[in-house]
C-alpha cells in the first residue's frame, strides 16, 4: 500500500527505549500475533494473516499497520484504516487496534504509535479519526481520552439474535 511503503520510519528515545515507528513488514507478523495474544488472551492468527494480506493487496480502504520497534524487538503496534461512507459519514480514519507489551507500558509507546497513525491519516488528507471499544476497557478508553479523543456523533447499538428463540 502506497501510504505504508512511503512512510518514513520515525526514531525517538522514550525512557529506557530507543523507539522507532515504522510500517509493519511480513516478518513482524509473529510478534504482532504474540503481543495481541498476550494482551487480549485470545489467539487471532487468521485475523492478523488477513490483515497483512489486505495491506499488501489493493484495497479501496487503505490500511496502516505500524509497529514500535526497540532494538529489533517489537514493543507494540497500531492498526488503522481509512473508510468512506461508513455509517453514512464522509471519509475518516479509524483506529482498529492498538497494543503495547504490558512490560513496556507507561513509557509513551502507545502515544507515539497513535501520533504516527494520526500523521499518516493527515498525510492522506484525513482530518478526523475515530475508534470504538468496549465500555469496560478502562485502560484503553483512558488512553484514547488522554490523546484528546472525545465522544463522537454516533451511538453504537446491538441486539441479540437469540432473543425470543
Amino acid at each position, binding site marked *: 500500500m502506497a501510504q505504508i511503503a512511503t512512510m518514513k520510519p520515525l526514531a525517538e528515545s522514550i525512557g529506557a527505549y530507543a523507539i522507532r515507528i515504522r510500517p509493519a513488514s511480513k516478518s513482524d507478523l509473529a510478534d504482532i500475533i504474540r503481543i495481541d495474544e498476550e494482551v487480549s488472551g485470545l489467539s487471532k492468527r487468521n485475523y492478523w494473516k488477513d490483515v497483512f494480506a489486505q495491506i499488501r493487496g489493493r484495497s479501496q480502504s487503505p490500511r496502516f499497520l505500524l509497529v514500535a520497534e526497540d532494538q529489533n524487538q517489537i514493543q507494540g503496534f497500531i492498526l488503522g484504516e481509512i473508510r468512506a461512507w461508513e455509517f453514512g459519514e464522509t471519509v475518516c480514519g479509524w483506529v482498529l487496534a492498538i497494543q503495547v507489551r504490558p512490560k513496556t507500558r507507561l513509557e509513551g509507546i502507545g502515544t507515539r504509535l497513535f501520533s504516527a497513525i494520526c500523521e499518516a491519516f493527515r498525510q492522506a488528507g484525513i482530518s478526523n479519526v475515530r475508534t470504538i471499544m468496549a465500555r469496560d476497557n*478502562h485502560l484503553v*478508553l483512558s488512553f484514547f481520552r*488522554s490523546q484528546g479523543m472525545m465522544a463522537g456523533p454516533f451511538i453504537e447499538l446491538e441486539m441479540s439474535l437469540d432473543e425470543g428463540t
Partner: protein
Amino acid sequence: MKLQKASSFALFAVLELAANPTRQLSGVEIAEKYGISAHHLAKVLRDLGRAAIVDGTRGVGGGYSLVANPKRLTLLDVIQVFEPVGSDSGHGLVLKASTDAELALRVILDELDDHTVATFRSITIATMLKLMARKPWARSAPPAKPVRKAAVRA
C-alpha cells in the same frame, strides 16, 4: 446531567492543585478563583483529605496539595467521594420496579448509567488538564442567539 455542588467544587479544587504541583494552595485562593463559598470548599477539601486525594498543612504558608497521581485519579474517583454515580445513584420508584413499564424504564436508565460511569472513569485529572489547555470550546461556533418572536398585535 448535573453534579452536586460538592462534586463540582471538589473537581475545581483537584484541577487547581494538579495544575500547580509545586505549591500549596489555600481553600480561599481556590474559592475566590471560582467564585464559590470558601466555607463549603473547606468542607469539601476535608472530605478529599479523608479520601487521600489531597493533603493539607495548617499554619502560615500552609495549604493543600494533591497527593493522588493525576495520571491515575479519575473524575469518577473524585465524584464518588460526594455522590453515588451510575446504578448506585438510584432511580426513585424505578428502583422497586415490578411492572413491565418500570422494568423497561430501568433497562434504559441503566444504559445511561453505564455510559456515565464509563465516561467519568475514563477521564483522568491529567486528561482534564490537557483538555483545559486545548480549549476545544474556543474553536466551536458561538451559541446561536435566541430568536425573538415577533410581537403579536392584538
